[in-house]
């Protein structure tokens, strides 16, 4: 089940956020219940360490509480909260790395985890694809997740990540291109278009 939201859900979330801005804890709890699964899934895809994910989620929710009155309705509540989560995750990962790499470089680093047993998996294209998607860089995993699982439009991703829409499309193109290269390297013929 994906996390696509209906128009009615979006309107309800706006009302809840307005109540949160007035200090309503029940509204805050209800907003949490509505957003926690997609947010948690998003952060798990990016950060992958459960303890750190809960820390980032905690920071994100506290920021929602503090900033609720500043939501201006120029995006959906969902997109606004994801934007906060994105920036918090990037910040936390930067601290974790404790390097002088800038954000762009850090985001572009591919996962250094164990390489899947390509030959053993090559008969199962979907499993292989899933493992290779996990090896993509932070920003490539993020764009695939937001488009495919969260079902964000180009504009919603642009808003959440504070990027121009054309950069969103280009980033997705390169993420998919990189996936093709990894498939090719895994012995899947004709993966690179």
């Amino acid at each position, binding site marked *: 089940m994906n996390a696509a939201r209906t128009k009615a859900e979006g309107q309800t979330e706006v009302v809840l956020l307005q109540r949160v801005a007035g200090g309503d804890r029940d509204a805050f709890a209800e907003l949490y219940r509505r957003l926690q699964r997609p947010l948690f899934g998003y952060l798990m895809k990016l950060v992958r360490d459960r303890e750190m994910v809960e820390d980032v989620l905690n920071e994100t929710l*506290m920021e929602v509480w503090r900033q609720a009155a500043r939501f201006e309705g120029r995006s959906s509540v969902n997109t606004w909260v994801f934007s*906060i989560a994105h920036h918090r995750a990037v910040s936390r990962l930067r601290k974790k790395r404790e390097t002088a790499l800038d954000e762009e470089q850090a985001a572009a680093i591919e996962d250094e985890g164990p390489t899947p047993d390509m030959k053993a998996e090559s008969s199962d294209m979907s499993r292989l694809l899933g493992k290779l998607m996990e090896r993509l860089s932070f920003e490539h995993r993020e764009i695939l997740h937001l488009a495919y699982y969260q079902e964000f439009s180009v504009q919603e991703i642009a808003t959440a990540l504070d990027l121009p829409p054309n950069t969103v499309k280009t980033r997705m193109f390169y993420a998919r291109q990189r996936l093709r290269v990894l498939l090719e390297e895994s012995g899947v013929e004709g993966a690179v278009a």
Partner: protein
Amino acid sequence: MSDSRNTASPKSSALGEEDVMELLPWYVTGKTSPEENAQIERHLSASPKLQAELAMARRERQVSLDGMQAIGEPSPDFLNKVLGQLDGARQWGPIAKDKHDAEAPGLFARLFGFASTPALRLVAIAACLAIVVEGAAIVKLAGNSSSGTYETASAPDMSAAGPHLIVQFQPNAGMAAIGSVLSELDAGIIRGPMPDGSYVIGLKPGADVDHAIAALKGHADLVTGVDRGS
């Protein structure tokens, strides 16, 4: 969401094969506009290469969905833990939208969400002066617009050529203190607050970014986070 589909741009009236290739991931999730769909489908009917790309996009999407099934959710006591922290968390006020509103808080007060008491007005004026001297007066963008964002008026070199930082200030940080720190760094606020409450700070061209980050992080009483901007 009122309408989360991509809006048809002028470019969408003449999508090329590369444009279609870029849009396929959104086509498979139903996030392309009807105008884009018509063109995508026209291209698809004539291009085996695009058909293969579409099949791949669908497979990628399915793998994304399948991969989330075992992802789980936060601990059962997570919400209570967060609720327990709300007491000590200050909620910021809304951003005033009309700079001509005599009752609206001062510029810095609006920027940082503080109440506009007479004492704070004085501090705000002092902070404004300090930054104006540094050539980084902050003005609200497009006076009557509802954007609620800000940019520097007299420091175009910062926004155009200098490096940027993303800074989050403590909610209770003093305005004069912030102005003082920014002055020390020859820095100015270019825009903000961003959706997460952070501000884009512009440094002068050639400024030592690592030094600026370290200096800002050194003011832990004012600054909660610093990241490199674009």
